[in-house]
C-alpha cells in the first residue's frame, strides 16, 4: 500500500470524526483506533520490506508530476521505522487514554489523529514548504492537545507555546522564501544539490527555526510547562513522536546545509544535553523531570546528527539506537506516570507493590542510561570510539558528564520508588497496562535487534545471546517460586558453569573464576536462611555474577566494558535492598558509573591509537605507546579503582557494605571488589610501567595504595558499627592488594593474588558472623553487645579464626601473605610508601581486637541473655570457610603453585621454589606445615597446662567483683566498649577528617546550586520565553558568523 494512504487514512478518518454527533463517542473511538492501526500497519509493512530486502528508498509522486514541480514523498527504511514509531506511539497513547479521550469527545480524537498524520508527513515529505505546513499542523494540534488536560495551568502553557511558535514561523517562512529565490526550487533534494552557500543567511533562518522546535536549551521554557501540565498520554506523544519527527526534519535540512552546518547542530545539541540534565537535578515534579530528560536526550541525538562528518553512515546506527531507546522509554514512563496520583517523585513509591510495574520502570531507566543490553549501550560504545578516533575528547567528556547527571537523577528516583513509603494504592486498568508493557517488550526486542546489528556492522557481541546473561534473566521468569528453590537453581547453575568451563582458564583467571563462581555459590548458602520469595534478589544477584564471569572470559574491550556495567547494575540492585541503603546505593551507582565512563573513555582512546580489527583485543593494550598510553593507563586505572575503593573514591563503600543485607555484604565485599583488582591485573599485565609528565605511574599507584591501606585501617578502628568496621577493613585490605600489584614484581603479584583468595574467605566469613550476631541481637552497634562467646560459640570461633587470618599472625594463611609481601618489598626500591604500609599493619590489629572483644568477650548484657546461635544456614558457610582457611594455611601450594609458575612469563625472576612442604625465596624459607604443627603443639601444651592449673577454679558470677567499695549490677558499667580507641582518636584523629566526603559533597552541592540558579531563568512568563528564543537566534547567528 502506498505510503500516501497513511496521510489519506489519517485525514479521512479525522473528517469522518467531524461528521459524527456528540453522542457517538464510542464509535468515534473505534474509528480513531482503527485509523491509527492502519497507519501503523502500512508503516510496518514497509519496514519489513525494506529491512528484509535492503531495497532503495522509493519516491511517491503526487499530481502525476515529477518533483520539483510537484511535491513528492519518500519511503525508505528510516522513514518506515520512524513512521511506525510515531503511529504506534499514537495508537498506544490512544489506548492508554481510552476513557479520557472518549470523555473529551470526537473533536479531541480528530486532533490526535491529525497530529499523528502530520508527524508522519514531516517524516515522509521532501518539500520544504510542505514541511512548513505540516509543522504548523503540529503547532496547532499540540495547542489543541495541551488544552485537553485536566490541569488548569495547561491553558497558559499552551499560550506560551503559541507565542514562541509565531516567532518561529516568521523566521521559517522568511528563510524558505529567500531560499526559494536563490535556488528556484522548493524541493529538499533539489536544494541539497545546489548547496547552501549561496543562501547561507536564509538557510540559517530555516535551520534555527526547525532546531527551535526541538526545544533547545535555554530557549525552551515553554516546553517544560507543556510537559508538566498535559495529559501524560499526550506528553508521551510530544516526547516520543514529535521529537522523532523534528529530529528527522533537522536531518533533512542538514542535507541541504552540508558539512559546514554540522558544528551548529553539535553545539546546540551538547549545550542542550548538559544544560537540560543539569536543570533536571532539583526537580521534584515527575512530569517536569521527564520533560527535561526528553529535551536532554533530543539534544544528544542532535549532537550525533552534527557529528555526521566523522561518523559516516554509522550515524544512523548511533542516532537510531539513542532515539529508539529514548522514545520507547519516555513514552513508557509518561504512561506509568498516569498510574501515580500525586506528582511528587517520592509518590512513585506506590508502585512498589507491583513487581511487574517496577520491572517496567527499571527497563525504562536502563534504556535511558544506555545500560546493556539495550540499544543505547551499543550506540554509546560506537559514539565514544568514533569521537576518540578523531580526538574530540572534550565532546566525549561533556557527553559522559551529561550522561552521569542523567543516571544520577534517574537512579535517585528509582531509590525513592523502592525505598519510600506511600499510602496510595495503584489502580491499573488493562488499557493503561497494555501500552506500558508493549513499551517494555519493544525495549527488549530493540536491545536484541541492536545487538545483532552491532555484530554484523562492527563485529561486536549480541549481549542478549550470552549464556550467563540469559541465565540471570531467566530468573525473572521464576520469580514466583520460593526463595530456597531459586537459591538451589542459582547455586547449581554457577557450579555447573564452572565445571563446564574451568579448563579454559589460565591459572590467574582460574583463581578469579573459582572465587566468583564457587565462592559465590558458598556465599549463596547463607541465603537459604531467608524466607518467602525474595522478589528481585535473584535476578539482581545473578546479573552481578553473570557480569563477573563474563568479565574474566572476555578477550576484547567491548566484552569487558559490557560485563563491567552488568555487574555494576546487578550489585546496585542488591545493595539497594538493605533497609537504610537508599543514599548509599545511589552513591555507589554514581561512583561506579563514573568509573565505568572513565573506562569507556580509556578503551575508546586506546582503540583510536591501535585500530580494532574488528574489535579491540585487551592484549592490544600492550601495543600502545606514548603519548596515548599513559592517558589510557590513568583512565583505566582510576576507573578500576572506583571499584576497589581507593582513597578519594572510597566514600560509597562503608555505607553500601554496611547497610546491605546479611547475605549480600559477603558477596559485595568479598567478591565484587575483586572485579576491580582483576581489571588492574589485566591493565598492568598489558601495559606495565608508564610515565606521564615525568611521573612514574606505578609509583603513584603505590602511594595511593599505601595511603588507602593506612587510612582504611585507621578509619576502621573508630567505628561503632560492626559491619562498617569490616567495610573500612575491606578498603584497607584492597589497599594492600593494589600495593602488591603496583610493586610490579613477581612476589608482589603473588601476594596480591594470595590476598584475593584470603580476603574473600575471611571477609565473607566475618561479614556472615557479624551479620548473624546482628540478626540475633537486633543491632549492629558493637558497644551494645558483649560476652556473646558463651551463647554464640560457633560465630566466635569463626570470628577468631578470621581475625587471626587477617592480622597475618602465624599459623594461618595471612602469615603466608605477609611473608611473601616482605620478600616482595626487599626486591623493590620504594621506601616511603613501604613505611606507610608497615604502619597500617599494627593498626589493623587494633580494629580486629576491637571486633572480637566488644562483641564476644567482655560482659554479657541483660537484653541478650537469651539469644541463640545464628541461623544454621548462616553458620554453615562460616564453618566451611574455617575449614578452607585451615587447609589453605597448611597447603598454600594448592592455589599458589601454578600461579607462581604462570607469573614467570611476566616476571621471570624472583619466583618461589617449591619442594615438598617447603617454599623458598631469595631471602628465606617458609614451611607452613611445620609452622602449623609447632603452633598447635605450643597451643596444646599451654592449654593443657592452663586447664591443669585451673582445675579447681571456681566459677564466678558476672557481678562478683567489687571495686572502690561498689559492686556493679549492670553490665554496661563494666564493659568498656563505646569509643573504644578514644586516645587514638585524640592523637591520630586528624588523619581521618572526612575530606573525601566533603570534596564530593561540595561538587554535588555546586551542581545543585548551579541548577537552582539556572532554573530561575524560567520565569513562567510567556513573553520572556519569546525573548529567550530571539536571544538564542541572535547568539547562534553571532557564533556562526564568528566561525
Amino acid at each position, binding site marked *: 500500500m502506498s505510503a500516501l494512504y497513511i496521510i489519506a487514512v489519517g485525514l479521512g478518518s479525522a473528517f469522518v470524526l467531524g461528521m459524527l454527533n456528540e453522542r457517538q463517542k464510542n464509535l468515534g473511538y473505534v474509528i480513531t483506533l482503527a485509523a491509527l492501526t492502519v497507519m501503523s500497519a502500512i508503516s510496518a509493512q514497509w519496514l519489513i520490506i525494506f529491512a528484509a530486502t535492503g531495497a532503495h528508498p522509493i519516491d511517491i509522486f*503526487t499530481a502525476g508530476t515529477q518533483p520539483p514541480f510537484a511535491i513528492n514523498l519518500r519511503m525508505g527504511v528510516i522513514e518506515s521505522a520512524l513512521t511506525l514509531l510515531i503511529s504506534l506511539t499514537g495508537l498506544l497513547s490512544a489506548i492508554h487514554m481510552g476513557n479520557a479521550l472518549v470523555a473529551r469527545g470526537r473533536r479531541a480524537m480528530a486532533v490526535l489523529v491529525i497530529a499523528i498524520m502530520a508527524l508522519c508527513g514531516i517524516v515522509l515529505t521532501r518539500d520544504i514548504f510542505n514541511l512548513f505546513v505540516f509543522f504548523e499542523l503540529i503547532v496547532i494540534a499540540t495547542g489543541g492537545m495541551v488544552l485537553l488536560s485536566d490541569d488548569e495551568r495547561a491553558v497558559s502553557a499552551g499560550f506560551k507555546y503559541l507565542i514562541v511558535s509565531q516567532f518561529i514561523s516568521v523566521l521559517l517562512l522568511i528563510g524558505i522564501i529567500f531560499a526559494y529565490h536563490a535556488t528556484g526550487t522548493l524541493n529538499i533534494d533539489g536544494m541539497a544539490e545546489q548547496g547552501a552557500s549561496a543562501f547561507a543567511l536564509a538557510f540559517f533562518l530555516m535551520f534555527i527555526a526547525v532546531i527551535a522546535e526541538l526545544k533547545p536549551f535555554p530557549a525552551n521554557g515553554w516546553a517544560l510547562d507543556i510537559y508538566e501540565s498535559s495529559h501524560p498520554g499526550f506528553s508521551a506523544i510530544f516526547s516520543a513522536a514529535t521529537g522523532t519527527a523534528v529530529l528527522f526534519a533537522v536531518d533533512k535540512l542538514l542535507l541541504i546545509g552540508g558539512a559546514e552546518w554540522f558544528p551548529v547542530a553539535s553545539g546546540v545539541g551538547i549545550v542542550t544535553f548538559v544544560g537540560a540534565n543539569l536543570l533536571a537535578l532539583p526537580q521534584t515534579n515527575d512530569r517536569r523531570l521527564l520533560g527535561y530528560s526528553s529535551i536532554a536526550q533530543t539534544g544528544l541525538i542532535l549532537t550525533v546528527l552534527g557529528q555526521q562528518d566523522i561518523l559516516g553512515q554509522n550515524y544512523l546506527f548511533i542516532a537510531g539506537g539513542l532515539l529508539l531507546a529514548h522514545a520507547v522509554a519516555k513514552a513508557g514512563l509518561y504512561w506509568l506516570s498516569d498510574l501515580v496520583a500525586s506528582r511528587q517523585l517520592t509518590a512513585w513509591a506506590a508502585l512498589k507493590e507491583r513487581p511487574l510495574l517496577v520491572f517496567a520502570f527499571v527497563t525504562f531507566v536502563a534504556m535511558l542510561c544506555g545500560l546493556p543490553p539495550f540499544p543505547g549501550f551499543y550506540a554509546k560504545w560506537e559514539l565514544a570510539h568514533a569521537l576518540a578516533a578523531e580526538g574530540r575528547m572534550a565532546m566525549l567528556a561533556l557527553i559522559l558528564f551529561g550522561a552521569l547527571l542523567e543516571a544520577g537523577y534517574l537512579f535517585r528516583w528509582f531509590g525513592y520508588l523502592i525505598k519510600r513509603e506511600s499510602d496510595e494504592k495503584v489502580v491499573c486498568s488493562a488499557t493503561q497496562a497494555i501500552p506500558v508493557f508493549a513499551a517494555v517488550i519493544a525495549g527488549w526486542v530493540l536491545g536484541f535487534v541492536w545487538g545483532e546489528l552491532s555484530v554484523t556492522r562492527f563485529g561486536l557481541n549480541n549481549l542478549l545471546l550470552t549464556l550467563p546473561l540469559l541465565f540471570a534473566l531467566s530468573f525473572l521468569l521464576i520469580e514466583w517460586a520460593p526463595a530456597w528453590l531459586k537459591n538451589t537453581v542459582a547455586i547449581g547453575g554457577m557450579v555447573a558453569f564452572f565445571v563446564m568451563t574451568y579448563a579454559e582458564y589460565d591459572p590467574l583467571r582460574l583463581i578469579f573464576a573459582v572465587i566468583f563462581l564457587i565462592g559465590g555459590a558458598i556465599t549463596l548458602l547463607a541465603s537459604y536462611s531467608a524466607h518467602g520469595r525474595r522478589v528481585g534478589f535473584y535476578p539482581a544477584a545473578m546479573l552481578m555474577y553473570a557480569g563477573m564471569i563474563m568479565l574474566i572470559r572476555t578477550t576484547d574491550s567491548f566484552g569487558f566494558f559490557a560485563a563491567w556495567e552488568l555487574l555494576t547494575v546487578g550489585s546496585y540492585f542488591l545493595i539497594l535492598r538493605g533497609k537504610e541503603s537508599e543514599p548509599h546505593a545511589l552513591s555507589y551507582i554514581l561512583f561506579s558509573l563514573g568509573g565505568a565512563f572513565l573506562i569507556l573513555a580509556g578503551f575508546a582512546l586506546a582503540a583510536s591509537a591501535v585500530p580494532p580489527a574488528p574489535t579491540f583485543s585487551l592484549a592490544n593494550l600492550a601495543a600502545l605507546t606514548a603519548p596515548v598510553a599513559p592517558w589510557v593507563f590513568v583512565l583505566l586505572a582510576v576507573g578500576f579503582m572506583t571499584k576497589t575503593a581507593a582513597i578519594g573514591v572510597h566514600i560509597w563503600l562503608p555505607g553500601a557494605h554496611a547497610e546491605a543485607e546479611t547475605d549480600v555484604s559477603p558477596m559485595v565485599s568479598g567478591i565484587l571488589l575483586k572485579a576491580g583488582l582483576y581489571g588492574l591485573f589485566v591493565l598492568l599485565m598489558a601495559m606495565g610501567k608508564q610515565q606521564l609528565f615525568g611521573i612514574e605511574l606505578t609509583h603513584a599507584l603505590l602511594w595511593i595504595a599505601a595511603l588507602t591501606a593506612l587510612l582504611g585501617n585507621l578509619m576502621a578502628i573508630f567505628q561503632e558499627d560492626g559491619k562498617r568496621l569490616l567495610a573500612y577493613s575491606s578498603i584497607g585490605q584492597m589497599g594492600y592488594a593494589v600495593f602488591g600489584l603496583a610493586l610490579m614484581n613477581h612476589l608482589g603479584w603473588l601476594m596480591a593474588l594470595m590476598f584475593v583468595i584470603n580476603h574473600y574467605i575471611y571477609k565473607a566469613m566475618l561479614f556472615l558472623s557479624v551479620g548473624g550476631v546482628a540478626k540475633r541481637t537486633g543491632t549492629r552497634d558493637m558497644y551494645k553487645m558483649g560476652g556473646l562467646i558463651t551463647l554464640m560459640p560457633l560465630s566466635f570461633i569463626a570470628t577468631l579464626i578470621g581475625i587471626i587470618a587477617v592480622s597475618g599472625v602465624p599459623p594461618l594463611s595471612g602469615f603466608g601473605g605477609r611473608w611473601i609481601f616482605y620478600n616482595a618489598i626487599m626486591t623493590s626500591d620504594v621506601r616511603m610508601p613501604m613505611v606507610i604500609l608497615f604502619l597500617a599493619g599494627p593498626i589493623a590489629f587494633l580494629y580486629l581486637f576491637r571486633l572480637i572483644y566488644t562483641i564476644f568477650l567482655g560482659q554479657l548484657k541483660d537484653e541478650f541473655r537469651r539469644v541463640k546461635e545464628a541461623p544454621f544456614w548462616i553458620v554453615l558457610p562460616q564453618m566451611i570457610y574455617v575449614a578452607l582457611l585451615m587447609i589453605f594455611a597448611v597447603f598454600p601450594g594448592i592455589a599458589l603453585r601454578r600461579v607462581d609458575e604462570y607469573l614467570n612469563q611476566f616476571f621471570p625472576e624472583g619466583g618461589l621454589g617449591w619442594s615438598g612442604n617447603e617454599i623458598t625465596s631469595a631471602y628465606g624459607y617458609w614451611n607452613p606445615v611445620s609452622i602449623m604443627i609447632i603452633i598447635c603443639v605450643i597451643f596444646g601444651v599451654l592449654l593443657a597446662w592452663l586447664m591443669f592449673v585451673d582445675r579447681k577454679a571456681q566459677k564466678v558470677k558476672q557481678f562478683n567483683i567489687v571495686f572502690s567499695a561498689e559492686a556493679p549490677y549492670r553490665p554496661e558499667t563494666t564493659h568498656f566498649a563505646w569509643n573504644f580507641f578514644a586516645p587514638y582518636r585524640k592523637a591520630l584523629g586528624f588523619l581521618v577528617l572526612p575530606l573525601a566526603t566533603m570534596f564530593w559533597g561540595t561538587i554535588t552541592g555546586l551542581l545543585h546550586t548551579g541548577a537552582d540558579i539556572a532554573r530561575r531563568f524560567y520565569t513562567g512568563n510567556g513573553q520572556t520565553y519569546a525573548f529567550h528564543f530571539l536571544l538564542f537566534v541572535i547568539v547562534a547567528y553571532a557564533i556562526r558568523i564568528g566561525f
Partner: protein
Amino acid sequence: MIKRFIALALVVAVGSVFATLLFGYTPDADLNLTARYYAERTAADLGAANIVTAIVVTYRGLDTLGEVTVLFLSASIVGLVLAKGTHAPHRTPVPVGELLTTGTRFLVPLILLLGVYVFVNGHLTPGGGFQGGAIIASGILLLLLADPLKHFSHSLISAIESLAGIFYVMIGLAGLFLAGGFLDNRILPLGTLGNLASAGAIPLIYSLIGLKVGAEFASILAALSETEEL
C-alpha cells in the same frame, strides 16, 4: 525599562538580519526553474488558465490539503474550547441600527453570490476556494453583526465541513487510480482552456474547498460570537 531596551536591541538585531537579506536581494530577470515549468506547461497539462490555482490545487495539492486541515483543526479546537453546551448564557436581544439591518438584508445575498462566483471561477480568474470562502464568511459576519443572537446550526456546519473534506480526500485518492497520482486533476476531462467546465477536477475541488472554508470560518465566528455575554 530594561525590558524595553532589550526588546529594542533584539528587534534591531533581527532587523539587521533582515536588512542583510533586503540589500542582498536582486529580482530575477527570467523565471526560475519551477516558475518556467509552470508557465510553459500548465495550460497544456492541466487546462487551467489561472496558473496560481493550478499550483495550489494540483501541483502543490498536498500543501492545500494540509492547509485545509489546519483550518479544520482550528475550527475544531475553537469549538472544543469555547463549547458552552447547554450552559449558554441567557441573552437578551439588543437593538441594532435600522441601517445595519436593512443593509444586511440587501447585501448578504450579493456577498454570498460573489463568494460562490469567486470559488467556482477559481481556475479562470484571480481568486479561488479560499478567497471565496473568506468572502462567504464575511457575509456570515455581517449577519452576526446585524443579529447577534442569530443561531447557526452547528451540526449543519460540521456536516458541510466534514463532507467537503471527505470528498476532497476521495477525489485525491481517485487521482491515484484514475490518473497520474494523488490529487491529479485529470480524473475529469480537461476541456477547452478558458471555459467554465475545464481544468478537470480543479473547479470541483475548489468549490469543495470554498464550502469547507466558508463553513469553518462560520463555525469559528459563531463560536466566538456565542461567548459574548450580552
